[in-house]
C-alpha cells in the first residue's frame, strides 16, 4: 500500500515498522510532528514529551538497556542539550536498537542557528544515515535499528526541514518483531562508565568504527549511478535531489550513509568519472573528509555557500558558474514584508507593553515571545538558547551591581522554563540575584503548535498528569515571594513588576494567561472591541501594540476631524473577525476611543 507522507510521518512509520517500543522527544521545529504522529497513529509505542532532549535521550538509553528498540527525536540544537549523554552513550552502545533522530534547519526557518549535525556523528564516532525523501526516511530508520543492534552502537539519522516538512509517496510495510528480548540484563563493565571500564570501551568503539567503514562499502544505500562519465557528483540527502533535478544526465555517487564514509567506493567513483564535484548544504563535511582521504574533487564549497539552504537554482548556478543567466524578476517594487507576529489577544502583549514602558533590559528566550524583539514592540534585547534568559539576566545583574538595579528582567515561557530554566532559577535563588524573572505561562508549548509539558496537566496522549505549580517551585528554588499577574490587566501587571524590580532579592513573576489559540483553556472569548471613530485622533498608541486585529487607516475630508474638532490624518480600526476581545487596547487608549461591547469591560478572559 502506498501513502503520501511527510518526512516526519515517514520517520514515525519507520519506527512503527521497526517494532520500536519507546519514543521520546522534546518539541522543536522541524522535528515535532514525528512524536505527534507516533502518539496519534501508533498507540502501541510508548511515547512521551520529555522535559528536554537530554532527558529524552536518557529515556531511550534506559529502554535500550532493557532490550527495547527506542527512538529519541529532536531538532538540531536539541542535540546540543543531549550531547552529554550522547557522547558517552556511544561508548556503552546498546542492547535494543537506539536511534537519535536529528532534524536540522538549514536557512533557520525557525531556529537560532544553522549548525550542521553531521559533525556530531564524527564527533561521537557513530554511524549516520541521511535520507533524501520520505521513502528513504522510513527505510533508513528501519535500517538504523538493524545497524544499531548489529554493531552495538547508537545510530544517528539526520533529517532537514526540506525532508521533515516535504511530502512524497511511501510504500508501507508491516511491522517486524525485533530480535532482542525485553528483560533485565546486567553487564556492568559495558554499561558503567567508570574510567577503568571506559578506557576499555574506547578501544571497542574505535574497532567498531573500522567495521562500520566496511559496512559502508557494501551498503546498497551508498550507490554509484553512471550516466555521462565526464561529470560526477557526490551528494547525500536533499542536495542529491536538487542535483538530480537539474543535472539528470551527470553521474552520481549517492551516499545514504554520511558517516563513516566508504573510501574504496569513493575511489572507484573518482576512477570512473573525469571531474568530481561535491554538492552539499552547510558545512563542507563530505568534502573535507574526502579530501583528507587524498582525493581531489574539482569543486565543492568554492561553488556553494556554507550558509543557508540549497535549492535547484543554487545548485545549477554553482555548478555552471557564470554560464547561467541570472533570473530576471518581473516586478521590482518593494513590497510590505509579512513577518510572523504575536496573535490577536496573545497574553504576552500586555507584559511586553509594561516592560517597554518600564524601559528595562529584557533578557529573552526561545518561543513565540522572542517575536517581542521585532517592531513595534521592540522589547526583547537578547536570546541565545533554551533557558538562557535567566542565567543571562542573573549574570548581567552581578556585573552591573547598583547600576543595573530595577532594570534587568529575564523573560521565559512555561515550556522553555521547564526545559532549561529550573537550574538557572535555582542559581538566582542560591546566589541571590536582584534580576526579576518573568515566566510567561501560556499553559502550552506555543511556537511549535501546542504540545503538552509537565505544567499543562496532560501527557502527549491526553491523559491527566501531575501539573507543576510554578509558585511552589519558585519557593522551593529560593524565591521568597513569587507573584502571579493577569497579563491582560495592565495596571496590575505594571504594579507587580514595578514592585518586584524595586526589590533587592530574587524575584519571580508568573504571568498567567493561556495561549489565545488554546481553546480548552477558555470558557469563552469576549466580544470584539470597537473604535469610536468620533473620538479617535489617530495617535497610534493602540496600533503600536502590534496586534494583527488593529490597523491604522488614512482618512480624508469630513473624516479628518474628530467630533470635538481635533484634526487627524488617520484612525485606528479593529477587525472584528480577528479580535478575541482581550481589552489590552481598551486600556492603553487615553481618550476612551476604544469601546468594549461587554456589559462592563473585562480585562482578559474567563479561563478554565
Amino acid at each position, binding site marked *: 500500500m502506498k501513502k503520501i507522507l511527510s518526512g516526519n510521518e515517514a520517520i514515525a512509520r519507520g519506527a512503527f515498522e521497526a517494532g520500536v517500543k519507546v519514543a521520546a522527544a522534546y518539541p522543536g*521545529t522541524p522535528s515535532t510532528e514525528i512524536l505527534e504522529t507516533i502518539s496519534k497513529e501508533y498507540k502501541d509505542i510508548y511515547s512521551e514529551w520529555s522535559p528536554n532532549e537530554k532527558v529524552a535521550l536518557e529515556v531511550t538509553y534506559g529502554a535500550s538497556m532493557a532490550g527495547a528498540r527506542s527512538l529519541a527525536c529532536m531538532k538540531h540544537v536539541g542535540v546540543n542539550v543531549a550531547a552529554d549523554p550522547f557522547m558517552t552513550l556511544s561508548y556503552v552502545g546498546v542492547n535494543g536498537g537506539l536511534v537519535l533522530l536529528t532534524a536540522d534547519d538549514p536557512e533557520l526557518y525557525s531556529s537560532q542557528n544553522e549548525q550542521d549535525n553531521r559533525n556530531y556523528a564524527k564527533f561521537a564516532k557513530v554511524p549516520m544515515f541521511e535520507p533524501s525523501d520520505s521513502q528513504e526516511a522510513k527505510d533508513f530508520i528501519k535500517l538504523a535499528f538493524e545497524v544499531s543492534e548489529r554493531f552495538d552502537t547508537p545510530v544517528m539519522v539526520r533529517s532537514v526541514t526540506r525532508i521533515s516538512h516535504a511530502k512524497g509517496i511511501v510504500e508501507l510495510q508491516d511491522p517486524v518483531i525485533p530480535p532482542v528480548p525485553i528483560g533485565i540484563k546486567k553487564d556492568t563493565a559495558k554499561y558503567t562508565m567508570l574510567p577503568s571500564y571506559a578506557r576499555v570501551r574506547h578501544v571497542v568503539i574505535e574497532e567498531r568504527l573500522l567495521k562500520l567503514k566496511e559496512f559502508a562499502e557494501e551498503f546498497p544505500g551508498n550507490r554509484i549511478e553512471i550516466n555521462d562519465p565526464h561529470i560526477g557528483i557526490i551528494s547525500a540527502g536533499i542536495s542529491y535531489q536538487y542535483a538530480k533535478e537539474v543535472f539528470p544526465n551527470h553521474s552520481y555517487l549517492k551516499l545514504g550513509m554520511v558517516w563513516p564514509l566508504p573510501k574504496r567506493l569513493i575511489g572507484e567513483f573518482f576512477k570512473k568519472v573525469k571531474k568530481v564535484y561535491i554538492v552539499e548544504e552547510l558545512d563542507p563535511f563530505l568534502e573535507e573528509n574526502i579530501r583528507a582521504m587524498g582525493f581531489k574533487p574539482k569543486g565543492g564549497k568554492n561553488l556553494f555557500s556554507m550558509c543557508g539552504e540549497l535549492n*535547484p537554482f543554487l545548485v*545549477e548556478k554553482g555548478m555552471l558558474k557564470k554560464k547561467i543567466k541570472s533570473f530576471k524578476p518581473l*516586478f521590482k517594487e518593494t513590497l510590505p514584508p509579512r513577518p510572523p507576529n504575536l496573535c490577536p489577544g496573545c497574553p504576552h502583549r500586555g507584559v511586553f507593553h509594561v516592560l517597554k514602558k518600564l524601559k528595562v533590559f529584557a533578557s529573552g528566550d526561545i518561543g513565540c515571545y522572542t517575536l517581542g524583539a521585532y517592531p513595534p514592540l521592540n522589547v526583547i534585547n537578547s536570546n541565545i538558547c533554551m533557558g538562557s534568559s535567566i542565567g543571562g539576566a542573573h549574570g548581567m545583574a552581578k556585573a552591573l551591581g547598583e547600576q543595573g538595579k530595577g532594570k534587568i528582567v529575564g523573560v521565559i515561557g512555561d515550556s522553555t522554563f521547564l526545559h532549561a530554566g529550573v537550574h538557572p532559577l535555582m542559581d538566582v535563588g542560591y546566589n541571590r540575584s536582584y534580576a526579576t524573572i518573568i515566566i510567561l505561562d501560556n499553559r502550552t508549548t506555543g511556537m511549535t503548535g501546542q504540545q503538552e509539558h509537565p505544567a499543562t496537566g496532560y501527557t502527549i496522549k491526553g491523559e491527566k498528569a501531575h501539573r507543576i505549580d510554578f509558585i511552589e517551585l519558585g519557593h522551593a528554588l529560593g524565591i521568597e515571594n513569587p507573584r502571579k499577574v493577569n497579563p491582560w490587566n495592565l495596571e496590575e501587571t505594571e504594579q507587580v513588576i514595578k514592585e518586584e524590580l524595586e526589590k533587592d532579592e530574587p524575584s519571580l513573576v508568573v504571568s498567567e494567561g493561556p495561549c489565545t489559540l488554546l481553546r480548552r483553556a477558555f470558557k469563552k472569548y469576549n466580544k470584539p472591541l470597537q473604535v469610536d471613530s468620533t473620538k479617535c485622533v489617530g495617535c497610534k498608541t493602540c496600533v503600536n501594540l502590534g496586534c494583527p486585529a488593529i490597523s491604522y487607516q488614512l482618512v480624508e475630508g469630513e473624516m479628518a476631524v474628530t467630533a470635538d474638532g481635533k484634526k487627524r490624518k488617520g484612525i485606528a480600526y479593529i477587525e472584528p473577525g480577528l479580535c478575541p476581545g482581550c481589552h489590552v487596547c481598551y486600556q492603553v487608549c487615553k481618550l476612551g476611543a476604544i469601546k468594549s461591547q461587554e456589559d462592563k469591560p473585562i480585562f482578559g478572559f474567563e479561563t478554565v
Partner: protein
Amino acid sequence: MDQKTTNILVAGVGGQGVILASDIMSEVFMEAGYDVKKSEVHGMAMRGGIVTSHFRFGKKVYSPLIKEGEADILFAFEQLEGLRWVNHLRPDGKIVMNDHKINPPAVNLGEMEYPKAIPEKIKSKLKDFYLVKGSEIALQLGDARAANVVLLGAISKFFEVNEDLWLKTILDVLPPKVHDLNRKAFFAGRDQISVS
C-alpha cells in the same frame, strides 16, 4: 502520461488553508497515477506570516522545491502574496488568484501602503490570469474558511482529472457536518473558470 513535471506554487498567509489545499492536490494527483512531491515550511509561519507550498507532479519528481522562475501555476490565496511570488512563475505561466487582501503589519502600522491595483498590474504582464472571488463566495455560502475549497474548485478546471476525484479527496479530509457547504464551495469555484 506527460513526461514533464508540473509545478504549482501555492502562496498565502498563515491560517488561510494553504497547506491543506496543497495536501489535497497531492492526494488527487497521486490517485490519478502521478509521482508527487510537495514542500513547505511550518513553524513560525503559523503566526500570521507568509505560507508557501511547492507542489509538483509528474512521471518522476526529484526535488520537492520548484526552481525559481519555473512555476507553471501560481495559486495565490491573497493578492499581496500573489504579487510577491509572481516572480517565481515562468513567463508563460498561469495565475489563479483569490480576490482577497490581508494587511501585513507594516500596513496596519501605517508605515507602508498596501500595493494598489494588483490584479491589473499582474494582468498587464501576464495574460493567463484568473481572479477568483474565493473569500467572497465562501462568505456568501456561510463560512469564510471554505475559501480554499472554492479556490481548489477553480484550479481543478485546468486539469484533466475527474471532478469526482477532486470532490471525494476534499470531503475525505473534512468533517461530515461541513460536507454540504464544501461541495457547494467546490462547484462554485469551478463555475468561476470558463476554459475554452
